[in-house]
């Protein structure tokens, strides 16, 4: 999966868990996004696992802190699957 393919899917998942529209150029960070708490974080990762069919490692769960990092991880992991 390319970044262009992954990015809108990840964004739609963010919109569900944060309950607000996310702009196409908006970069989200756990530091600055108030609603992105640990519960929303785990929900987001669960949803991505459901959607893409892979599982994050415990370290990845702890270390993914921005929307860009998550998109990159999705691209890498879906490429691994192929």
């Amino acid at each position, binding site marked *: 999966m390319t970044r262009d393919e992954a990015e809108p899917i990840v964004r739609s998942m963010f919109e569900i868990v944060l309950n607000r529209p996310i702009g196409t150029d908006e970069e989200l960070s756990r530091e600055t996004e108030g609603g992105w708490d640990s519960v929303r974080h785990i*929900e987001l*990762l*669960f949803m991505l696992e459901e959607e893409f069919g892979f599982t994050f490692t415990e370290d990845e769960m702890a270390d993914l802190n921005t929307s860009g990092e998550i998109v990159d991880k999705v691209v890498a992991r879906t490429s691994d699957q192929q």
Partner: protein
Amino acid sequence: MFPPAGRIGKLAEQVSATDAEVCLARAEWQRVLFAPAPRRHEILKLRPTWPLRNVRLRVHRNHGFEPVASVLEKYLAYTGLAVEVAYSAYDDSLSLSTPGPADVELIWLDFSRLVAIGGAEELAAWALERIEALRGKSPAPILFTDAAGDLDRAAEFNAQLRELTGNLPGVHICDLGQLHAQLGPAFFDERTLATSGTRMSNAACVQAARWLGSRWLPAAVAPRIKALALDLDNTLYEGVLGEDGPEGVRLTDAHAALQRRVVELGAEGIFLALCSRNEPADVERLLAVRTDFPLRPEHLAATEVSWGPKADAVRRIADKLRIGTDAILFVDDNPGELAAVASAIPVSTLYAGPTGADSVAALNWYPRLFRWRADETDALRTGDLTASRVREDLAAKAPDKAAYMRSLGVRLQFSRNVQGELERLSALSNKTNQFNLSLSRCSPVDLAQLLAEPGNSAIAIRLSDRLSDSGIIGTMLTRRDGAALIVEDFCISCRALGRDLEDVMALEAIRAATDGLDGIRHVRFHPAVGPRNQPARDWLDGFAGETGRSDPQGWVTVNWDRSAADDLVERMPVIVEHRDPGKQEQSA
């Protein structure tokens, strides 16, 4: 603490959908909520477009519940409930802080954190002690999720817990162990503990939310569905009766499973009715010749087959069953029919998918069908209804009313303060509408508290005759106030109405309640005005007669004259029995 009010107001502002639109939107939700493996990202996308009633859920926990709560919110929204969750801190000692009222108390434990307490026996005793402590602080229903394989001898603990709590009113053990058995090792996901505060996997959290939101919580806070009104063509079988003929319609495996599920619900006390646009003769022949159908004519409490509007047919079914249309779940494969019925009458609707398999899942998970435990009257209802039709024939043929009553051998049995009957008496208090005099809507806990005071009574009234055993069909709740017996409530199931037994039920219930109470000279009632309880209020007017006195506070007082009551009851051709409380086991 619960979150501040306001969320429901926002929802209410958004609600502008018509009943038909809501019905169709809810049909869309079915695919997501009742899927074999429901998915979090599909569930969380759902947004209700209908008004919701607030339910306050207080969670006493030692591990994370939040990954369950977000999904639970959607399942409860489907039921029409907006859940507000108040959390305890993570607390292995379960100290049970209860600031403010709650509608439901949920005890949510990771038992692997509690091994220091001891083995299964010690842990069950500890759980019982904590449940009783919570009961001392809150009258709300208590749900306790059992051990889900996260404990050595979990099955033994779960069995002991059920045994210890079996007779506690308003306490329900939620079978999370069964979900663990279904998911196996996939129930746990150790990766997530640090982030989510629970070892439960995503799948386990989503499925637990479904159990809580579709079964356990609705059973604790919402009235149960009383009847299914079922379409025939492409709902209970594949094909169209008018085109394929009775022998030509196809009972697929999925439709057979659906019919078996329907029969199962019938055995659990839900009336089954057919609601079909067809030729009545065709349906009669279908039921006669398709002996391979699990759903048989004897399972049906009503059959409405015509070419008229289905809303009218559902109304007639409600009349026949003596229930409100809002207690009926109308099942049809045609969204247009569902929408038309929903826009005409208050009714619950369920879309029957084309294959039958979706409908099986929907009837497994549709809220307000689950009940915690079998009620002895559940299995009696349909037989009782059939018997009522035979009674009507007998009444028409009998020379007079007394002869008719004698021919039936009507028997009324009265019992007082029996702990094991409190759940049933609470169900009567909450489910009856037409004959519910004071609308007190008592929970089992309310009844247990009533009986904690000496001189108070909860009378159970059983009815049977040679045609059927109706089980417990009435209750009178009383307390003493000086020389007066206060009737807190008097409720009779609609199945027992129309037989001129109300007076004798009242008099004998009062007799049972005053047994051992000297000096009772008056009986006082406080009727409440509800939308449907006019029959109960009319009865009281007649019962009080010219000698009864009403006061501006709404109390109706009648003199209590035991001998006059004896005379009246003696003239009634019914057999009256009082079960001796001294000889009853489990007497409260």
